[in-house]
């Protein structure tokens, strides 16, 4: 086995995995607070990427302001979605929750395509292009930045869930909604914060994707590819999302490198099914699955 190839595959797999992890964190935040899986996460990514494109390339804002505006707009969208779509459905069965986010994904996709069209756009690179050699493998700056951002986000979120009022309230609600309510925690507020946070992390991931793979419609499919990541890591675990992202990214990268038939497209899903069979709550998730 060629060790150079192996190293290169490892590095690219890890950096892809960290993008997955960024996306997965958005899932986790929403699931932690409300037990909802957001099937529209891919569209949130798309929105983030196109918003950044609009602010920076179309309106000509400097990139620092552009990113800030993107994040603020994304948070607004998250809040609006939560208020108009999710809140009326609190307490409804799982199928309604799943379907409403699927409907949302269709609507958001239509809005994005209607505004910006479906053709891929060139994103103005604001990350200095360049490469570093690391143990014989070549790593682009953009990839390193993704890894750094994932690390920062993980730290911030861990601190958020451990020390802030809203973070602790979120954990309380995830643990027992009734008990949390009777302790005076406002579910509405917590859900709003969760959706705003999920939209922001998705926007960050969207901007990173725009930088590495360009602004295009294909970003949506990353939303579906992240399911294996969250299931593997555990739906309610932030570290799980990072580890799951890394593992799935590596798996994809190795299968793509060492096999030829496009197997990397389904290997994550096979892992997903295996995980669901053996350990449905994932590596780091809380063990509350009831079986029949």
């Amino acid at each position: 086995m060629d060790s150079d190839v192996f190293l290169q595959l490892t590095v690219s797999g890890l950096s892809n995995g960290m993008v997955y992890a960024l996306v997965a964190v958005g899932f986790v935040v929403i699931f932690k607070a409300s037990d909802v899986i957001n099937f529209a996460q891919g569209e949130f990514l798309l929105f983030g990427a196109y918003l950044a494109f609009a602010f920076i390339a179309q309106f000509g804002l400097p990139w620092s302001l552009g990113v800030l505006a993107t994040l603020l707009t994304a948070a607004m969208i998250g809040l609006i979605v939560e208020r108009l779509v999710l809140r009326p459905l609190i307490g409804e069965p799982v199928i309604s929750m799943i379907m409403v986010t699927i409907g949302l994904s269709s609507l958001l996709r239509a809005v994005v395509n209607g505004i910006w069209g479906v053709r891929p756009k060139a994103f103005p690179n604001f990350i200095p292009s360049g490469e570093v050699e690391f143990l014989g493998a070549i790593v682009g700056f953009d990839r390193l930045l993704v890894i750094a951002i994932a690390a920062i986000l993980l730290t911030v979120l861990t601190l958020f869930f451990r020390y802030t009022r809203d973070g602790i309230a979120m954990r309380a609600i995830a643990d027992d909604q009734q008990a949390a309510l009777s302790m005076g925690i406002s579910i509405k507020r917590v859900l709003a914060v969760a959706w705003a946070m999920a939209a922001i992390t998705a926007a960050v991931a969207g901007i990173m994707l725009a930088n590495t793979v360009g602004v295009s419609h294909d970003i949506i499919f990353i939303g579906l590819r992240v399911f294996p990541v969250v299931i593997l890591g555990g739906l309610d675990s932030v570290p799980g999302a990072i580890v799951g992202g890394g593992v799935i990214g590596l798996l994809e990268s190795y299968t793509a490198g060492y096999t030829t038939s496009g197997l990397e497209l389904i290997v994550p899903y096979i892992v997903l099914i295996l995980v669901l069979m053996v350990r449905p709550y994932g590596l780091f998730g809380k063990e509350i699955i009831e079986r029949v």
Partner: protein
Amino acid sequence: MESGIFFSDYRSDMALRRMPLQKVRTGLLLVGLVVFPFLATPYWLNLANQIAIATIGAIGLNILVGYTGQISLGQGAFMAVGAYGSGLLTVRLDVPFYLSIPAAAAITAVAGLVVGLPSLRLKGLYLAVATLAAQQIVEFVVTHWDGLTGGTEALVVPAPELFGARMNTDGRFYWILVVVALAVALFAANLFRSRVGRAWVAIRDQDIAASAIGVNVFGYKLLAFATSSFLVGLSGALLAHYRSIVTWERFTIEVSISYLAMIIIGGLGTISGSFFGASLIVLLPAMINTLGRSLQDTAPWAATVLPYVQQGVFGLVIILFLVLEPEGLAKLWRNVKDYFRVWPFSY
């Protein structure tokens, strides 16, 4: 107008259609279905055929999701199994379509058992994600197993023949579809009044309570997967022969989603809802298309945004129904019926 419901023997009490008005409506429906192809243009016949196929698939999905409470995102995959099954039997082995379609449905039922078997340990969200994975894997197999399915190439299925006539027009295929759809609806309506149907509803409402009163949860869930997949495979197989061409693009995750939308919009756990939902999801894009065409002269830009409008309206309709009328079109229809049943004395 009725003043009360009186039955003096079990037979009339157990009948599927008990009220005079119900019988009138059923009669009108049947007459309408027979007269329709003689009055309708080919465009409307085509839509009617699509609705019939979608209704069969939606009833199948409703058995699983609406009655048994098992969420499935794998509808597209099961339809693919039915379509390719029947198509390949006809093309490779020269099996006549009236045998290949049921055979394909049976194959799909087995596929449903395979997907259902491990999924039985999972509930709700996890089951949805597992069926999503199954959908992706089936899609991959269909597009990559060139030797069997022809990969991404389209599989051309010859037009079916019945009594020496080629069923290659919308008008002729209509009869096959209407008969099958009515038979499926009748079968499902009776199924839900039987022991099996009630066991499914019990599992949906509270599985632990169901097993406590002696329902074999494991067995009935498997049965639901098999029955549902049988009907879904049937609709996939009919689609293959109706379109006379099978391509994998017709069986993507989008298809799974639009079928889920049908039963949500129509009403979970109702047969009339499956029909209403299927009709709405088939007619909505067609209507928007027509609207866009008629605007073409006054507003030429309308044509370019048409696909996005269709997609956006699709999403919006799902959201609006879930937020405003979670019981769907079937509930609205029930309201209308109730209003007229006791009209004009509503109290």
